[in-house]
């Protein structure tokens, strides 16, 4: 083998290896194509049609998209509501998760126990958690009502299920209880990844706790934080079960999220074409958000 062909990597051996490598990826490629690319293509195709569940479908071009932005006030309201929900819950989850991570970080005997306690709600599904929560806040049968009665506090639990802001807070509390453990675990890992010497050096230099945390530790945890935000934000933008089961969109569809409205269009009104168009719009929103986050991640590499 001459040096030049080795350098350019075009020897028959390396080509064979490359081909074998490609063959090994074909199962994964096949899976991705059939389970992701094909359905997505089909969805985009459906979004250009009036496609009822039963009956003929007719090509209507971009009419579904026009409808989503002009005559369907509920869709725009649902996107707005979803964004508000995401903006509120993301920092709540982050700072609470950070607090819990700092709390369980100390090597005390209880810390392993607390880690488990905070993390366990994460493993039950959102539907199960929502049903559990409905019982929890029930004005007649739930523990919150029982405690409030016993203490003599008059609380209006009906508004937690039927009014916009109390309903939103109610769901945020439930989701926080459920997923904050996950944030805690990730942030714990990130915290442990910060070298002790750096913190000590900052301490020696006279930096107070607050300064140490926000100017030294968090910036060094950037990759973890960005990863966490990707999970958190995309999960919140796709919120469905908790609103479907707890607030049921009340009052007057004001607590309907984007995915909830897609479900409604597809499975209550049986308008699959319109539901597909709404899904495409959500997909684009998610792609933009993901792109921004990947950009933030890339920035980290250059800083190093």
């Amino acid at each position, binding site marked *: 083998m001459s040096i030049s062909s080795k350098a350019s990597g075009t020897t028959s051996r390396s080509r064979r290896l490359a081909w074998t490598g490609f063959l090994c990826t074909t199962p994964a490629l096949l899976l991705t194509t059939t389970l992701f690319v094909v359905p997505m293509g089909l969805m985009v195709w459906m979004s250009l049609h009036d496609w009822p*569940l*039963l009956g003929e479908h007719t090509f209507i071009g971009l009419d579904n998209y026009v409808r989503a932005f002009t*005559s369907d006030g509920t869709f725009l309201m649902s996107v707005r509501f979803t964004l508000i929900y995401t903006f509120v819950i993301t920092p709540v989850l982050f700072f609470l998760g950070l607090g819990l991570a700092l709390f369980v970080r100390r090597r005390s005997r209880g810390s392993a126990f607390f880690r488990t306690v905070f993390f366990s709600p994460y493993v039950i599904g959102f539907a199960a958690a929502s049903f559990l929560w409905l019982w929890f806040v029930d*004005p007649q049968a739930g523990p919150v009502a029982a405690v409030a009665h016993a203490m003599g506090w008059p609380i209006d639990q*009906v508004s937690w299920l*039927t009014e916009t802001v109390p309903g939103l807070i109610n769901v945020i509390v439930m989701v926080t209880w459920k997923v904050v453990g996950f944030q805690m675990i990730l942030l714990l890992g990130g915290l442990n990844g910060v070298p002790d010497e750096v913190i000590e050096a900052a301490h020696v230099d006279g930096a107070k706790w607050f300064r140490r945390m926000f100017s030294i530790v968090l910036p060094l945890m950037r990759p973890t934080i960005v990863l966490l935000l990707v999970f958190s934000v995309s999960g919140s933008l796709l919120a469905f079960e908790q609103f479907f089961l707890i607030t*049921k969109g009340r009052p*007057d569809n004001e607590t309907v999220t984007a995915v909830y409205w897609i479900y*409604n269009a597809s499975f*209550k009104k049986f308008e699959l074409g319109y539901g597909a168009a709404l899904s495409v719009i959500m997909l684009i929103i998610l792609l933009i958000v993901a792109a921004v986050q990947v950009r933030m991640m890339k920035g980290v590499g250059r800083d190093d």
Partner: protein
Amino acid sequence: MRMNILRGAGVLSVAVLAGGLAACSGGGSSDTLTIWTRTDGEAYMRDLAQKYESANDGLTVEVTAIPNSDVSTKFAQALSAGDVPDVMAMDVAMAPYFVSKNAFEDLTDRMADLDYADTLLEGQLDAGTSDGSHFVMPFTADASALFYNKDLFAEAGLDPDQGPRTWDEFVEAANAVGDLGDDYEGYHFSAGCGGCSAFVLAPMLWAAGGDFLDSSGDSLNPPPMLDDPLTVEFLETLKSAVDGGGITSASQVDGGENYGGAFESGKLGMVASGSFQLSNFMADPLPFDLGVVPLPGNEDGQIAAFSGGDVLAIPNGAPDSEAAWDFLAWASSDDAQTALSDGGYTPIRTDLLESVYGEKGPEYAAMAEATTNGRVPITVAFTAIYSDANGPFVSLMQAGVFGDDVPAAAAAAQKTAEQIVSSNE
């Protein structure tokens, strides 16, 4: 190494093919009758299936129960795939949608040959009728009527032997019972569940000559009249019961989970429910005197009922259409309907309603009267308009009955309903 992988892959694919072919050779037996029903009707369907099997040697009846909320979607998917059961038992309110999509076989001629053809419940039959042809066979009736607690009525100063006969008497009774105490409710309904509210409230509007959808024509897709003056008057009437304490927030948040309210515990004055509830109450005697009256309109003498329940149909493309019709004929015959009546379910034959069912007692007689006068709201958009928890009817309940501005709520709901109706044209 690569040869080994290829050889392994070859063996694996042959094995999979062989396994698949073996599974395929099972095939369907022509001595099996497949029936799909909703879980609400599972109990009596299985009972009847057993009876039918013993009356027909060699025939197996396979009953599949589908959760209520999934029936429309699952059945629609089956129709698209061409993989349908022989017999489909569905909620009568869903029938117009599927009839409009040509999902069912025409039963008109076969039905005319039955000697009890004119005793079949009109309300249910009409729901599956298009251009004079019948596409569904009534199966079980579940009409709505008003149940009330006679003891609570007496306590509240009302005449216990007289249920409310007008809207005003209804509100008066509700507020009077609600006044008995903090944990007393005058009337309870599931305002978060569209189908449930329609079941109990629509008849009161019908009795007064009004409607939520204008069914005066024969259209399967009638236009909405949610902002009609009579409709608004009815909603204001209900709102006055909310303002007077007769209807509480317990009704507002109830999404259908709490259908009977606190009736059995004796803290609820009135609740409107169906025949199935009557048999429950009769089976487990209540700790108080039960009264049953048909749902009233706004003037004395006006009554109506929502004729719910299930109807049977033969989907187009059913594996064995003849066997399916035999089952339909048997299920509506004296044998099967009397068996249902004995089990506490309401028959769909007016002759049996009067005799076998009505003679079980005065409460049953009242229910029989309600059933015979029963109607079904006929619309292809029943799910989108009525049942949808985010649809216009539920909005009307939440924002109208429990809100501050009934006319505004009615106008908003009317607009949404109009959009739904026009998208179904």
